[in-house]
């Protein structure tokens, strides 16, 4: 009795989910307190950055020489930077860029990853071998270095940064989708569909891809956190987004010169980066638990 409890719902029953189960997923998600915290952090960040002008009375590029290096007070809640710009404002506007790039990059890499991964996983044999070998080569280059190489070639700017990061992430999302597809491909309902004469495309779109949605959503959410990390890293070394566009990594890079004398310019961007990654990680973990209840006991 006790031994069999964990594997009670069979894998097959689980892949054949119906629409009504999405409300199950949501209710499981909201019952998970830590996951809820992640959702709240993410929502808060999105609202703060998207409606940034509502939460600050300064423009992000308004310089004011007399106000340089102000410690946090009532008028500048997080102080000002070396040009007298309000740090809180710059972090909010910077968050727009960071989040936008991170989400864009995640969408691009997962989109291409789904295509490559499902072709590779579904057709198997030679197609699979060739694709996997190519991915092996790409994966031999650490993703950050690949992003650096691509980014230094494409040049800076939000779109190029998103491209650089998404390209370096493709092999990883492709592999996840491939293994999911391969496990679903062998399940009985797919064999049944093929036995009754469904064509490849129909089998892929109708039977296989819907079942990759769960790992895809989880991967994409967790990917956003990792992308935030990569973007800030790229900007920090001067490749991602350049000043005067505010971006968390480039704010940190600018602030590095003043690290000995003025802590807010390092500490506040760090907190923003950390909270964002934490939020997306918690959200992604909670989504995974909610989408795949078998993992929880």
């Amino acid at each position, binding site marked *: 009795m*006790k031994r069999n409890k964990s594997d009670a719902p069979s894998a097959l029953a689980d892949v054949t989910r119906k629409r009504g189960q999405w409300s199950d997923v949501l209710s499981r998600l909201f019952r998970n307190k830590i996951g809820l915290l992640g959702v709240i952090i993410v929502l808060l960040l999105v609202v703060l950055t998207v409606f940034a002008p509502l939460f600050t009375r300064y423009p992000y590029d308004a310089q004011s020489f007399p106000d340089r290096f102000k410690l946090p007070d009532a008028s500048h809640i997080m102080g000002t930077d070396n040009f007298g710009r309000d740090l809180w404002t710059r972090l909010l506007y910077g968050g727009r860029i960071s989040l936008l790039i991170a989400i864009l990059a995640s969408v691009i890499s997962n989109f291409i990853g789904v295509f490559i991964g499902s072709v590779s996983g579904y057709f198997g044999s030679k197609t699979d071998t060739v694709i996997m070998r190519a991915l092996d080569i790409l994966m031999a280059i650490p993703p950050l270095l690949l992003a650096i190489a691509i980014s230094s070639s494409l040049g800076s700017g939000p779109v190029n940064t998103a491209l650089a990061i998404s390209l370096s992430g493709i092999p990883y999302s492709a592999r996840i989708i491939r293994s999911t597809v391969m496990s679903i491909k062998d399940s009985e309902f797919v064999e049944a569909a093929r036995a009754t004469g469904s064509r490849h495309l129909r089998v892929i779109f109708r039977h296989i891809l819907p079942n990759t949605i769960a790992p895809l959503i989880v991967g994409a959410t967790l990917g956003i956190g990792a992308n935030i990390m990569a973007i800030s890293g790229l900007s920090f070394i001067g490749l991602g987004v350049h000043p005067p566009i505010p971006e968390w990594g480039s704010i940190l890079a600018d602030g590095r010169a003043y690290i000995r004398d003025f802590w807010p310019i390092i500490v506040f961007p760090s907190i923003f980066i950390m909270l964002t990654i934490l939020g997306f990680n918690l959200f992604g973990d909670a989504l995974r638990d909610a989408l795949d209840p078998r993992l929880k006991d």
Partner: protein
Amino acid sequence: MSLLQINDLTIHYVTRGGTVKAVNGIDLSIEAGRTLGLVGETGAGKTTSALGILGLIPKPPGKIISGQILFEGADLLKASQGKMRMIRGNDISMIYQDPMTALNPILRVGDQISEVIIQHSGCSKAEAREKSEGMLETVGIRAERAADYPHQFSGGMKQRAVIAMALACNPKLLIADEPTTALDVTIQAQVLEMMRELKDELGSSMLLITHDLGIVAETCDDVAIMYAGEIVEIGALERIFHNPRHPYTLGLFGSIPSLDKDVRRLNPIPGLMPDPADLPSGCKFHARCAHACDDCGSGSTELCETERGHFVRCRRVAGGEI
């Protein structure tokens, strides 16, 4: 004094989803040298009872609510961890259902047997190795295979190795939890035969857990039928087999195909075993019982002795109505 005497043992699993009442007040005893067959469907609480004897119920969620497990007169439930460790593998050892997963995949088979010998006899590594090779020979595996890893063994060989491990310290009681269920039918008979011989050689007692009445008939001296965490019928093998009284036991026999009689269909027991997290009141079997009357759904039903040494947990049998 019996070798093992279990009194009123109750074990529950307490989870957020509710309390699973796995074992509900079982009483049984095993005399030295005898074999007791514990029979029941999956989920009847057989394995939980066995793990309870060894003190291996995972806590949490497991919880021993009440009872005594007297082994040679001492209550195992009150024994210290250290004392239990000295008993496990030495006085009482266990053979598990699935030989595929019971052996550690990354340790050599011989070492896994030596380990238990060293633990309990304190002998040297070399002596233990010699002894474990001897044990392997006893169960029909060549000694040089001791250096192999479990994945190099077939299923039947793995189970033999597990048996060698269990018998390595001449235990007084051997608990075998469905030892042949995972094996091919042809291997089943061999393994069973071997277990019986070895047990007789060592003079051990055995608690054989199974759902297969055929195995019970071949191997056991006494039989206890378990249903929903309770023992519903217990007695000597011949009595239970020749004169089964509890409607559930009758149902079990009725669902076995017979070679002698020409029956077109088997007679399965209607319905399913109740969810142990939500047991019915009264007799646990009444909802599936052809003989149930209104009374069966309430109150508690006690074991009652219908003939000498043959106990049945059924009111209507006790009342002489069936």
